[in-house]
């Protein structure tokens, strides 16, 4: 944990007294004892008591307090299993609580970092490290370097599933700079040679074909993707949309209906379903879907605005 976490702990200590007052005769002693041990840095002794106090506490404040100290102590001792266990229980106890969610963001991020460090130490030459490096380059927007790392990985182990797929995805995201549409298609096809069950590779082959207006080919790939992963909303939608564009309105309804069930907040899918119903003369169904499309679009806009507002800062004066 970061050193800046110390104030949080000490601020929590102020809650200890309040928490104790909310408990019965035996419990405050237990919670206080556990918290005091944690505050004194005696986390190995504190953890079993914190666990017990968390389970036995009736009051919310005491649960929050002992749970957070549990996370803190487990992280200090690098007991990852204990840390995730304390956090899971906190999240169950306080669903949607901003304080606990904030703790979760940090704890999980810290655990991801620790595991990546451990991976670098125990297996620096492994393909997993190459893969992590490539993903870091992807995050940094350096597609060429990411592809370079993936190629080294393929030289070492050409049969690793998922790598051609990632390269294909990078080419699609960076048209021109990282390769052509044809290069991307080749990568997805090679992926299916390695792993015929990669639904995402089938999906992207469908997308490439759709963009090139090769609708029968697109339908074939989307159908394969949807068969491989029935809950893959985008694949169901791609299939339905391609059927709709091919004039096969009746056939389009089932996959788009499934896509709507899987992704009810997506306005584009509601719009496609409304169109399919309309073309088939199902006016009431079409009207309902158009209404749902509007609701979903309004909600999406509101969420996007809220996110932008938060990202830009409340007064909007900073860029």
């Amino acid at each position, binding site marked *: 944990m970061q050193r800046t976490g*110390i104030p949080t702990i000490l601020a929590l200590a102020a809650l200890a007294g309040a928490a104790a007052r909310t408990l019965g005769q035996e419990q405050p002693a237990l919670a206080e004892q556990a918290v005091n041990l944690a505050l004194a840095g005696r986390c190995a002794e504190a953890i079993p008591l914190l666990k017990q106090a968390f389970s036995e506490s009736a009051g919310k404040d005491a649960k929050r307090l002992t749970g957070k100290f549990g996370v803190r102590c487990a992280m200090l001792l690098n007991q990852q299993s204990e840390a995730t266990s304390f956090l899971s229980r906190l999240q169950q106890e306080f669903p949607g609580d901003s304080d606990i969610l904030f703790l979760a963001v940090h704890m999980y*991020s810290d655990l991801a970092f620790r595991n990546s460090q451990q991976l670098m130490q125990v297996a620096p030459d492994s393909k997993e490290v190459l893969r*992590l490096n490539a993903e870091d380059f992807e995050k940094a927007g350096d597609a*060429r370097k990411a*592809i370079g790392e993936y190629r080294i990985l393929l030289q070492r182990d050409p049969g690793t599933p998922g790598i051609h797929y990632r390269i294909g995805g990078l080419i699609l995201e960076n048209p021109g700079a990282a390769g052509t549409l044809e290069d991307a298609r080749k990568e997805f096809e090679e992926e299916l040679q390695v792993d015929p069950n990669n639904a995402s590779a089938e999906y992207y082959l469908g997308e490439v074909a759709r963009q090139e207006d090769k609708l029968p080919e697109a339908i074939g790939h989307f159908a394969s993707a949807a068969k491989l*992963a029935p809950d893959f909303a985008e694949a169901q939608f791609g299939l339905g949309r391609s059927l709709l564009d091919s004039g096969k309105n009746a056939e389009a309804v089932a996959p788009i209906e499934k896509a709507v069930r899987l992704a009810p907040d997506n306005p584009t899918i509601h719009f496609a379903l409304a169109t399919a119903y309309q073309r088939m003369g199902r006016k009431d169904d079409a009207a309902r879907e158009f209404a749902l499309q509007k609701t979903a679009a309004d909600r999406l806009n509101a*969420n996007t605005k809220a996110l932008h507002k938060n990202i830009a800062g409340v007064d909007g004066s900073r860029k």
Partner: protein
Amino acid sequence: MSLVKLLLLGALAAAIAAGQSSPQLAESGHCREALPLLKTDLAKATAADMQKRLGVDGVRCGMTLDDMGATLDFLRGLNKSFPGDAEVLYLSVHVFSDLSIRASHQLMVSAPSAYQVHELNAEALETQGKWSDAEGEYREVLKRDRQVAGIHYRIARLLLSAPPDATSKSDAQADAKAAARRELEEELQIDPNNAGAEYVLGELDRQDGKDASAIDHFGRAAKLDAGFADAFIGLGRTLLTGNRAADAIQPLETAVKLDPISPIAHFSLATAYSRTGRKEDAAREFNLLKQASEKLQQTKDQVQQGIAGAPPH
């Protein structure tokens, strides 16, 4: 028994009848049906390969279904059965990173105006080097709750990290230091036990040649957090500067125990030993200093190599 349970059992029975194992179900995207079977199969599995496959499938299905409890149960099992396994560590990195992102999204959606959202924004801006934007977000946190611990400390750190204005470098640095000092003092009003704030105040005093005050701050920081190596180093170095080599030994010995690869801790301790006539101890520490410096350089080279990555094809 509810209709849903009956239907689920029906689907399971159909899957088993069709001869599909739980990994096959999971790997073909039927996570809802696969998850309960993966749990029972894992409890019975004895071969390591099968245990790993079931565990990995369980983690992936748990994430797909947004079932955090199941995900973490499977992941704990994998880490327990396969400690230090590269594939499991790689999976762990992704699961934890994903859970962190999901928690931040949930926070933004469920409590978009909470001060924690601004704190997260500030941290993200800080990592991007957008100092002034980050400071603005931290100020938003304080507007919502003036008593949030750690925020003045973060602002002080930002003020000290921001690159000075090129046209008036020394004035800007002095202004930033004065502003940072005010923030740190405000932090200690809110949270008198903030060891980090005490430490930075000590560093500012040390840089300004106010050794007595620096020693007080470093001493308090070390007392507040007995594992804070930098506070012990600061205390020891400042005592050395004030020709109190004998007093410096104890904090510096603590510092090298806490951070055995810190070249500055070894160098300062070697100097303290040397000045108090402990030549053998000094020689040992200088030797450890050399080793620590070499190790540090090695790590830097490895990191550099990692950043440069493979040449593009």
